[in-house]
């Protein structure tokens, strides 16, 4: 008599593989590819939005700052970047200090980047490729053509994702990370003020006041 039980076991095993394992085996790679594509479109739409809202010549500076603030909050993970930039001092700060710091941080970012973005907004941004760093992080490689000297500027966008939400967590221009540079900058101030956040907050207040008052 034939050994049905072993054949049946083999068949059951095959069914198990085809129904349960393979679909999940294939799913993660395509999910990552989907995230990469979404990240690419995310950056592309940011470039288009920036170009539309920031390159209107007639807009006075505070109108441009307003528009940029909205653009910034919509597309950048402001809170997460702020926490990273503060480093280990975040843990030592009180709730009120953290809140005030984040508000001033956002102010500084908006006022100091609005001019930079306005300069780049009209230029061609070409996305060259995307790369998944992890399930939640994608790097979008792009080039921006500036007017002088043919060589385009390499700009990397680190996009973090949490479910459907996508936000930029870092901008890296020719190898220089915005977040890392800010972290070194703020870290130096904190050290000079004896490790206290209050000293940094004071400097941030002064700096944002100066920047807002200065002409474009």
């Amino acid at each position, binding site marked *: 008599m034939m050994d049905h039980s072993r054949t049946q076991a083999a068949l059951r095993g095959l069914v198990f593989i085809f129904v349960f394992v393979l679909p999940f085996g294939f799913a993660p790679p395509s999910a990552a590819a989907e995230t990469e594509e979404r990240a690419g479109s995310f950056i592309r739409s940011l470039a288009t939005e920036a170009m539309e809202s920031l390159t209107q010549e007639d807009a006075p500076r505070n109108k441009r700052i307003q528009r940029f603030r909205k653009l910034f909050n919509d597309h950048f993970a402001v809170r997460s970047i702020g926490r990273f930039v503060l480093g280990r001092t975040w843990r030592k700060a009180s709730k009120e200090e953290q809140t005030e710091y984040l508000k001033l941080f956002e102010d500084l970012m908006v006022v100091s980047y609005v001019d930079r973005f306005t300069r780049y907004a009209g230029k061609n941004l070409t996305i060259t490729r995307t790369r998944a760093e992890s399930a939640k992080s994608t790097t979008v490689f792009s080039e921006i053509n500036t007017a002088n000297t043919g060589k385009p500027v390499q700009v990397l966008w680190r996009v973090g994702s949490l479910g459907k939400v996508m936000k930029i967590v870092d901008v890296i221009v020719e*190898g220089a990370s915005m977040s890392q540079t800010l972290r070194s900058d703020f870290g130096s101030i904190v050290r000079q003020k004896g490790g206290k956040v209050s000293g940094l907050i004071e400097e941030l207040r002064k700096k944002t006041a100066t920047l807002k008052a200065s002409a474009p």
Partner: protein
Amino acid sequence: MRVGTWVQTGVLAAFLVLIMSVTGGCATSPNPADPEAVAEFNAINDPGEPANRAIFAVNRGLDAAFLKPVAMAYRDMTPQFFQDRINDALDNLRSPVIFFNDVLQGELERAVATVIRFMINSSLGLLGLNDIATDLGVEGHDEDFGQTLAVWGIPEGPYMMLPLFGPSNPRDAIGIVVDFLIDPFNIWAGNTDRDYAIYSRSAARAVDLRALHMETLDELEKSSLDFYASIRSLYRQRRVNEIGNGDPSDNLPVISIGTAP
């Protein structure tokens, strides 16, 4: 080296010693009881910070008084066409040094590209004034002996702010000297009593670079809380990028978005 250069080196060394003694040279060490602070201090690797800051202040003064006004005038009054020609010619003059460093790093493909570029741009490109090679698909790159030392595995050492030359470190400073000595243009000028050519070329390159980075540096200065610290961080990140020939570093900060981004 000729006597003049030795005298200049001596003056520079004396200047540095003076600065360091006046500012009390070394940075205050962190509290040894705080391991995070100690780790941070070591990571920053800037034991000469007070002296470096003093030199930085001097550099900024010289920049504001001399280099920046000239660079701004150059930018505003020289037609873009001429600025591009000068930039292309200066880049082309660097080709021999770039070639040597490509070879020393074992980057033979890049070395060949450098030779091709030099030949095309010097002939068809009219003595380097036109960067025809890039239009033909042979893109350029920069190299220096500091990068070569890095590729050979030599660590950068503590942060050093050099008078005039700006941010650097022991390894890159040696690189500057070696590149200067092996540059055929400088050797030729030295042998034929045309030292002024070396100064003119250095001055032209300084103005060219300053004009190129005008807006980036201006914006960084305006928005930085501590411009010295920003420059230090920026310099190091750029060097890593240059040494790796543009490959994205694995050391990029890891930031994840929290539940309330």
